């Protein structure tokens, strides 16, 4: 199943105004892995994610999804296998009703009407949003919008899911539902977030970015309990790893996922 691999080699990217957003980023993500990308604001997380589906093309270096290099000529194939959920669901949901929005991707894949219908039904069912199908997106709550945004991507049955800040702006229960939804997916997952506790729950591996470069890449439990590393990268220990704020007791071993 080599086509579920994401490989980034010496990736560099400069924005048009001259800001260097990525400096020599390299990593390789295997099939079925779930990887967190963390770092302070402006560390280059979103820029990196935009390279994985070819919305941005490398200034230098290379991005490969499976056996295919991400280039202008391969965008069609790349975008079929990489599904991106953007940070603001309002950007993702641009059709007048939820059903049409979820159907947008499958229709662009030239599926038959029956095929589109079954994809839409399946995707909305997966995120428990079938009842929202005929609603306009602007009438949905934040959590519903997020769920539907994920469905719009699932309906294209991607091999790889890329999520930018999926838990931003959600209330605690909606966030918990999202985490259990995502942890049920078998896809290769790449999740950029400041929500380190979610990364701790969701990803076995984490890539820490700082000023456009990868400063650490390894098991989540080890990296996210490394106070010095996190402090240097503009982050702090996730709550699940910190001592209890009331009694000062250290977290039980069960809070940290065993690798």
């Amino acid at each position, binding site marked *: 199943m080599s086509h579920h691999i994401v490989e980034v080699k010496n990736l560099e990217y400069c924005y048009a105004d001259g800001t260097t957003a990525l400096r020599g980023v390299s990593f390789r993500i295997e099939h079925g892995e779930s990887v967190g990308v963390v770092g302070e604001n402006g560390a280059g997380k979103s820029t990196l994610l*935009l390279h994985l*589906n070819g*919305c941005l093309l490398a200034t230098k270096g290379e991005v490969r999804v499976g056996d295919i290099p991400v280039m202008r000529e391969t*965008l*069609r194939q790349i*975008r*079929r296998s*990489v*599904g*991106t959920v*953007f940070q*603001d669901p*309002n*950007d*993702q*949901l*641009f*059709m*007048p*009703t939820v059903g*049409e929005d979820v*159907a*947008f*991707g499958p*229709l*662009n*894949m030239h599926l038959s*009407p029956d095929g*589109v219908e079954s994809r839409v039904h399946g995707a909305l069912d997966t995120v428990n949003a079938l009842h929202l199908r*005929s609603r*306009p*997106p*602007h*009438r949905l709550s934040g959590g519903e919008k997020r769920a539907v945004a994920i469905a*719009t*991507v699932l309906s*294209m049955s991607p091999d790889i899911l890329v999520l930018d800040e999926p838990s931003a702006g959600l209330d605690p229960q909606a966030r918990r539902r999202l985490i259990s939804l995502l942890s049920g997916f078998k896809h290769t997952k790449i999740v950029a977030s400041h929500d380190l506790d979610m990364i701790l729950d969701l990803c076995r591996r984490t890539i820490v970015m700082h000023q456009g470069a990868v400063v650490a890449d390894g098991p989540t439990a080890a990296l996210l309990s490394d106070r010095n590393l996190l402090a240097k990268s503009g982050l702090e220990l996730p709550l699940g790893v910190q001592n209890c704020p009331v009694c000062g007791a250290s977290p039980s071993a069960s809070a940290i996922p065993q690798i």
Partner: protein
Amino acid sequence: MTRIDTAISDIDVLDRLAAGVSPIHRLDPRAKLIVTVLFLLTVVSYRKYEVAELTPLFLYLAVLLALGRVPVLVIARYLLLACPFAVLVAVFNPLIDRQIIAQLGPLAVSGGWMSFVSILIRFVLTVSAVLLLLACTGYVTVCAALDKLGVPRLLIMQFLMLYRFIFILADEASRMLRAHSLRSPDGRGTSLRVWGSLAGNLLLRAYDRGVRVHTAMLARGFDGKFRPLPGFHWSIADSLFVVGSSAFLILVRHGQLATRMGRWALELSA
């Protein structure tokens, strides 16, 4: 601002009505669209002093209103909202065109006043007809029908996007205005300079939003072609609706229906 706000968030009142069930709702959207266009053409084809001849057209609206179970108040509210534009267009006619063309008892009526009334009647007829179409069909379905009838996809895409993002834009604008008003507690009006920067900011935000939405579309395989969901069904009822309505419109336009009805009413009362 708040009032524009509510007006915008109320736009989908029509969409909620469109989810209803009625003989009119069941018609093929293309049939309703064709008839509405014919109706509009009929209304604008009258000469400027014709008033009485327009009145039978209200019958058509009344029938649609009743069969489609659309509350009159909803239509009236939107008419009221749009009426300043129509009044502005018509208001100078009585001042410019002072020639007397009719005598209503002791009242001499000038051509200007006739055309003023005619413009307002046309405004009510045309806007209500479009509102009724939306209330019995829904905005998105009307767009799909336009597509099936051959209107360029790019244009339809714009209609749909407009409908989706006007809410977000209005939301953004109202948040900016709220932020502004919270930091100008003396409550004096917004200065022109501040208005300029608010409007400019809104434009920039809208532009950024546009870029992000386009990115999201590309990520889901958008290739410049827009593919709406298929699925309309033309039945005999639709053909009957189009033929019947056209016959009525022709009768009104060329059969002097208003005069005949007037005469008939006179004979009845005699």
